[in-house]
């Protein structure tokens, strides 16, 4: 078997902040423009496709995040076996990309997911992020793509004080180090 390697694999705790990397979960990028595409993904994933900006929808297993008017980001809550994953990926690809409805791209390892929770997580983010979290923090399921310490991130507000942050893999070790450094001073 091939060994699995993550750039981080760690959990750190600070006063009212907990930071941990979560691995490995399924991540798929979905792009399409027309209504058929939107209904199709909803049907295939048994999830409502969020069409309002900066929102998401979730079911027991999956989360579907709005990224732009023609782009969505799908990730699973739990670890998923490669075989099951390939089945899902192929099915989506065949039902969407093959039939020219849009695109389906496996980005599982493009993004690293960092889970942040605790009362002071928004304060931690505000150490390097120009985004206004005042309303965001109380809105369950809110999504934003922004910059954190000059690095592109997707932030999914699962619940108040409980969020998932996605960062590109090659940047993740650096951001991890920054998060930990900043958390010391919160």
């Amino acid at each position: 078997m091939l060994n699995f390697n993550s750039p981080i694999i760690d959990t750190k705790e600070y006063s009212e902040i907990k930071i941990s990397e979560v691995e490995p979960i399924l991540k798929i990028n979905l792009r399409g423009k027309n209504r058929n595409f939107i209904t199709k993904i909803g049907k295939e994933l048994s999830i409502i496709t969020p069409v309002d900006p900066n929102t998401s929808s979730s079911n027991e297993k999956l989360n579907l995040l709005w990224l732009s008017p023609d782009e969505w980001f799908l990730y699973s809550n739990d670890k998923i076996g490669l075989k099951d994953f390939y089945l899902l990926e192929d099915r989506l690809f065949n039902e969407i990309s093959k039939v020219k409805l849009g695109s389906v791209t496996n980005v599982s390892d493009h993004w690293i997911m960092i889970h942040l929770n605790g009362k002071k997580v928004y304060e931690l983010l505000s150490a390097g992020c120009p985004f206004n979290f005042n309303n965001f923090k109380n809105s369950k399921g809110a999504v934003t793509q922004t910059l954190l310490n000059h690095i592109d991130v997707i932030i999914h507000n699962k619940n108040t004080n409980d969020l998932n942050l996605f960062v590109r893999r090659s940047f993740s070790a650096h951001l991890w180090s920054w998060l930990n450094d900043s958390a010391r001073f919160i």
Partner: protein
Amino acid sequence: MSKNLRITNSKFIDQTSRISFKFDGKTLYGFKGDTLASALLANDIHLVGRSFKYHRPRGIMACGPEEPNAIVQVGSDASMTEPNTRATEIELYEGLEASSQNCWPSVNFDIGAVNNFFSPLIPAAFYYKTFMWPANFWKLYEYFIRKSAGLGKSPTEPDKDIYDHRYLHCDVLVVGGGISGIMAAKTAAKNNFNTLLIDDKNILGGTTLFQENECFKINNSYSSEWLKKEIETLKSLKNLTIKIRTSLAAYHNYNYLLARENLTDHLNINEKKDKIRQRLWKIRAKKVIISTGAMERPLIFNNNDRPGIMLSSSIKKYIDYYGVKCGQRISLFTNNDSAYEAAISLNNSGVIVNSVVDIRDKTNSLIVKQAEMLGIKIHWKSSVVNTSGYKKINSIEIMKLSDDGTAVVGKKIKEKCDCLGISGGWTPRVHLFTQSGGKLKFRDKDNVFLPNKSELDQISVGSCNGDFELDEVINNTVDSINKFLKVNNNDYENLEIISSKEINKKNIWLLPSDKPLGKTKPFLDFQNDSTANDIKLALREGFKSIEHVKRYTTTGMATDQGKLSNMHALGIIAETAGVKMGELGTTTFRPPYTPLTFGTIVGRNVGEFFDIIRKTPMHDWHVENKAEFENVGQWKRAWYYPINNENMHEAVQRESKAARDSAGILDASTLGKIDIQGSDASEFLNRVYTNAWSKLEIGKCRYGLMLNEDGMVYDDGVTTRLSENHYLMTTTTGGAANVLSKLEDYLQTEWPELDVYLTSVTDHYGTVSICGPNSKKILSKIIPDLDLSDKEFPHMSFKNTLIDNTKCRVMRISFTGEHSYEINIQASYAKSVWEKCYEAGKEFNITPYGTETMHLLRAEKGFIIAGQDTDGTMTPVDLQMDWIISKKKYDFIGKRSLYRSDTIREDRKQLVGLLTEDPKEVLEEGAQIVSETNKQPIEMLGHVTSSYFSPNLNKSIALAVIKNGKKLKGQKMFVPMKNKTINVTVTDTVFLDKENKRLNA
């Protein structure tokens, strides 16, 4: 100290906690709550520095950020010392060390003071008029000028302190916690605005906090008592955040403001440790309320700069707040009522007030009457014409003013004193308002510039808006805030306010003297040593605009940015030139309001966090195997892998040879990878690359060249057709982000009709590249069931396959000219695949190689590196890659530019190969190429772009661009170096395996 200058009833100083500190090496004592300035004054030290140009003795003049003189060096540690710090803003802490600046050997005896003697020779801008002869002596003159200029000393070791940043979004930001700021913040927070109140002091309340005068009362108690109660009520407000020791540094467009919070500067050495020293708040406020107050103006008269001459309001603060007497026999000199407040406070604290010299005719406002009742002597319609005392003032000379105020008349009265309080009226602090782009208006009655129009959602209240009297401040603030926030706050209705009203106003910008102006020294800018005479000289020489005068005389350009001098400079210019103040305009106030430490601006973006580091999935393996790394953009790429003390050259020679002789392995994960899907994917590629893509078979790869619209080579890479409407594009490492965003741009804006979707997968895949004659054997060990025959898996094709149940894509492509494969697998497994390849390759002596060897190997084959062999001026034709330009395609990005009159020239610079006459001689990359060495001026035909010693050819090879190079093949050329000339021959760009046999070896 012998003199007891501290009174005992100050409410703000904790006289039970004594603090020791050092000034100029001498141990002194102060109390908790003191500033360095108040503690020095309590120790009867006025003289703290020397002026910039004339090295005149200077003392503490103010009590806040406008202090021009008392700027000191804090600390002596090479890494922690801080120059040019205002003593009036340094909170005293145990162990504080400070020293005077710009004096040698000491502040009391300063050699530089000889400049004062020469001062007649060195008026404003004298340096433009001299030091020109002999011409080459300027260097020497400049050495001495520089030595005597400057103030404090820069640290010489890196800072050990930590700084950071925080973003903050609020509904209302209130800047300044004086009486109007407190009212504003309370109103905002009570009405559900998420409010932030900041103040640069360590306590809220401003000057009202210590105002205990019968003339200023609210609801029958001192205004200070009333305000303290207001401050108490703030504590219960949920929507309000208060930050003290936080000063607003800059006010940018769109209500974006920067504020510096001082977190540890007031703590003693031990308490400072491991804490953030200063934090920069990046504030985005929906609404901004500026309540920054006003500054007292000095008066401009002969010798107004001696130690002991201070602003009268500062003298008042030192006595009322700090409990410090600035002198024991104090005189006051004023053109308005505020000096009387100081006089009364001093009198009440038992200090002898000699007299108040007032330029006005008699006035009988409430406060003046009170002073008269206390028996304070007043010289009406008089002016101070001179002062004496070298290191500290010891007397003043008073004369009557003429009726028109332009001259002094009558008998000179000499008055002994050890301190002189001066007051020239008040200047609203409009700096932040103008920084935000707001326009000012001039109010004639008291000569002030006031906020007028602003584009932003903001308002100024209190004395920074020109309301100087207590009842005005309160009533106008309430009205303005209610209107601004669209609320109806009635907390402040029906207040009973007593406020002394200033009845009589008079202003003389430059006070007359009994001597001719040229013989006097009326200072305007105390720190930069510019006088009223300098302003007049500038005007005489034709410098009319305020900006010209400012630059010519350096008035207002010192570290206090002219907080005290600007108004008088304007006044004197207006008066001399006969222009109205309002028409003259002001100079621009630029950020920051007070100087801001570089460390604070940079925050945590230092050291490790200076710039992002990107790592590949195999990074740790490279580290474990002692790779040296090369920075490629933000990536760390393995550069070469030295073994046994090899230097770079040795390692690269070994790696290069191994890759061609047997097998090499390279981490190619950093290449940009873009997943392209959609029914128009082929058409899209046709438009972005120079070559044609529609006919590329599924499962095949093709090299593509991308141009800018100007026809110059922009990026290159191999793109693979994965299925009918699905491609994987690779880009250069450095170009990845730009290519993706450029392609998105075309798709969204020029070609929205195309059904194409792009998704970056750069980080999703790790890429292991194995090359060399044994690469096939190695791959077959790892993926045994994959048919690697040339027929099934030829060069420039790809296979989907599995390694241990994990999907991967294997491309048979080559950047080295060797038989080679690139395995793309999801990043989490890439290191494992790399290790597997390495293990499998051990029997073939598989050698990891880095970017340097990769560059060498491709150069042997004449493959270009975009950005190294091209520089934004090379077309594909220049690269001799005409074959890659499709003649059939109607259009592609950059096509039209290839047919401009200059780009179709045949004698452009073109890519060629170069061989040195001496095969051991390796050319320097960047070296220039000429055809004749003895012609002057020498004509440079081109330069060397890539150059290596090829171990496989056992000779030096190089790529170069040369004018008309295509036609010069076989010709001799010269590379003139500093000490020698190297003979070279122009060749083809392919040095090794011209027939491409090795690809299928």
